[in-house]
């Protein structure tokens, strides 16, 4: 990966999204202060970062709405700054906050955007009907958008971003407002688009959803992409596992005896160390969080616990890998 602003086209050029040394300030605020990013065709890339880390600004640059102060950007093989129309013709963008035309029906909104992308009228009708079916809005297609719920509007926004069959899809918080069923649908849709070769970049806070969706992850903090080294370190850091057993008292007793670091998983369980006399651990099914280095460590814990006669019922990572990595980021929130 090359670094620094104004460099030539990277040697590993691809038709997805390539960003090198991107800078963008708003007055004294450095919204983007050195972003390097690669989102490749056929893969779903997550854009993860705390509030104010520059995710939306980055997506605005990629969508061709903002001129970067410095840096090199390619979207779908074109520079959105100098070759805007060509890049935009290949880009579908769904902003985090967008409005709808209340008096228009969902079908009219999509037909308008098909016309705005200069799709032939004949094909547009069929394309719109197909998209409405894809986002499960066929029944509401001819009702005004004002009757749509927030999640339905979100799905309409997604269909709108897809109307011209873009090669590159930029989604800003697409899962917000969606019910669990719609989230699963969104995941299936994005995976199938990626399978057809689309480059998908998703920014989201719903990290558990991203876990099952994304191939790659880019972490953004303070306007910078966190370096690959930090990411590896974050991923290899000790993780919390949720361990459950038939008897909580037996489990905690055994964990303490073998010197494992564990934390209570619920309010009614006392911490192993603390102030005041320790309350008795209830002798009933329950779970605790245990710090385990890696999967091998988890396997060893299962083997040792079973050998020691602890009746384990389950052991699983607490929170997704992305969430763990996210929380491990040592950057301050803005």
């Amino acid at each position, binding site marked *: 990966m090359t670094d620094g602003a104004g460099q030539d086209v990277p040697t590993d050029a*691809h*038709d997805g999204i390539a960003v090198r040394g991107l800078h963008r300030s*708003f007055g004294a605020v450095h919204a983007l202060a050195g972003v390097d990013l690669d989102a490749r*065709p*056929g893969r779903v890339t997550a854009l993860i970062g705390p509030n104010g880390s520059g995710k*939306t600004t980055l997506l*605005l*640059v990629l*969508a*061709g*709405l*903002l*001129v970067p102060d410095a840096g090199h950007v390619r979207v*779908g*093989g074109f520079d*959105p*700054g100098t070759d*805007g*129309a*060509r890049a*935009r*013709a*290949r*880009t579908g*963008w769904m*902003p*985090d*906050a*967008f*409005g*709808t*035309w*209340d*008096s*228009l029906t969902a079908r*009219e909104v999509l037909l*308008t*955007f098909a*016309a*705005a*992308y*200069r*799709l032939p009228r004949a*094909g547009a009708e*069929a*394309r719109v009907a*197909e998209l409405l079916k894809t986002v499960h809005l066929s029944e509401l297609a001819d009702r*005004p958008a004002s009757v749509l719920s927030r999640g339905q509007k979100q799905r309409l926004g997604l269909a*709108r971003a897809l109307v*011209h*069959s*873009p*090669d590159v899809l930029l989604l800003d918080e697409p899962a917000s407002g969606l019910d669990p069923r719609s989230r699963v649908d969104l995941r299936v849709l994005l995976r199938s*688009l990626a*399978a*057809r*070769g*689309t*480059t998908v970049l998703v920014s989201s806070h719903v990290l558990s959803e991203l876990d099952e969706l994304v191939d790659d992850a880019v972490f953004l903090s303070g306007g910078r992409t966190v370096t690959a080294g930090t990411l590896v370190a974050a991923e290899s850091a000790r993780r919390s596992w949720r361990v459950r057993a038939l008897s909580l008292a037996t489990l905690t007793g055994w964990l303490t005896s073998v010197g494992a670091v564990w934390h209570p998983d619920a309010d009614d369980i006392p911490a192993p160390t603390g102030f005041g006399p320790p309350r008795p651990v209830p002798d009933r099914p329950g779970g605790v969080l245990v710090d385990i280095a890696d999967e091998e460590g988890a396997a060893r814990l299962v083997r040792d616990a079973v050998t020691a006669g602890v009746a384990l019922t389950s052991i699983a990572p607490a929170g997704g890998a992305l969430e763990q990595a996210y929380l491990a980021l040592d950057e301050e929130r803005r």
Partner: protein
Amino acid sequence: MSTVIDEGAVPTGASGAPTPTTLPRTWTLTWHGVRTVAELELRQRVRSTRWIVALVVWFVVVGAITGLVWLSTRSLLTGAAGDTANRLLRGPMVFGLVVFFVLFLGLLVAPTLSATSINGDRAAGTLAILQVTLLSPFEIVLGKLLASWAAALAFLVVSVPFIAIALGAGGTPVLAMFVCLGVLALLLAAVCAIGLGFSALVARTSGSAVLTYIVVASLSALSPIVFGLTYLTTTHNETVRVWTIPGGAWNGDTAPDCVWENAVGPVTHTERTWWLLGINPFVIVADAAPQPDARNPRITGDPLGSIRTGVRTLRAGPATTVDECWSGQSIQGSHYVSPVAERNVDTSAVWPWGLAANLLLGAAGVWVAVRRLRIPQRTLARGTRVA
């Protein structure tokens, strides 16, 4: 780039979206693009019930004013000489007042139709998603202008019955109605375009509406006031050649032997300030309306005609020679021959200049709006988000 595509009936995914043959630039203009935006705007606007209410209120107000003008001019002119003269007096007055009232209301309504168009969309989050499409900024602006103008024209159409009724009062050529409607329509287009420019320039919708109203008020109310204030500053004491009675002494019986004298007196050079009136929408409409009756040019009850004669005379400026031999004129009657040349006031139309000035302001509004809608943007207005 693309991998295997499972093709449905329509191209999907990374099949390489069919690249349009014409990629838009800032000033690209296609009817397809303009119509797409205008349809979107009009659909959104027409389906709200407020719209119908506004048209009904307009219809009632214009109707009420027409009725009032009709009744008041009848009582005012009752008892005047013969029926024909009465008709000639009353018809143009009713027509002129109704047209002016429609223009007045139109200038009030037109800014609301366009002055929140762009910053309102930005606040609602519907502008950026339109900007990233393959519509050019020029197409978006012209589409919005077309939609707001069409809405303004709807108000004008609702007024047509009353203008026709005013025409029925007599004395006004039918052509006057079409000319007035045409000039009204163009003036409203200019106001819509000015509003559009401000809505692109100012972040808040209230701000752009106020600025548009200030421009409209400057054109229609402030310009005559400024003209009046500059009247004194353009007045100077100058020497004028006067055909007058020598020494001002006249015995009162016989025709005096008038002579040329040089007199010093105040002269107002309105030829330097007439354009302040020329850009006024009301003056433009009045000047454009055809003469009510060519055979009877001295109809005093015609507000449009009075303004027309007035502004054209003011444009000509002061006369260089003046005939003050009134007593000779009154005694000798038609035998009196004045040596002062008949003043040949330039009667060419004022309205094309005024209309052009208004349309130029509108064009400036469109230009500003297009410049502000170009993407990618370099600067952002304070406190605004792009999307």
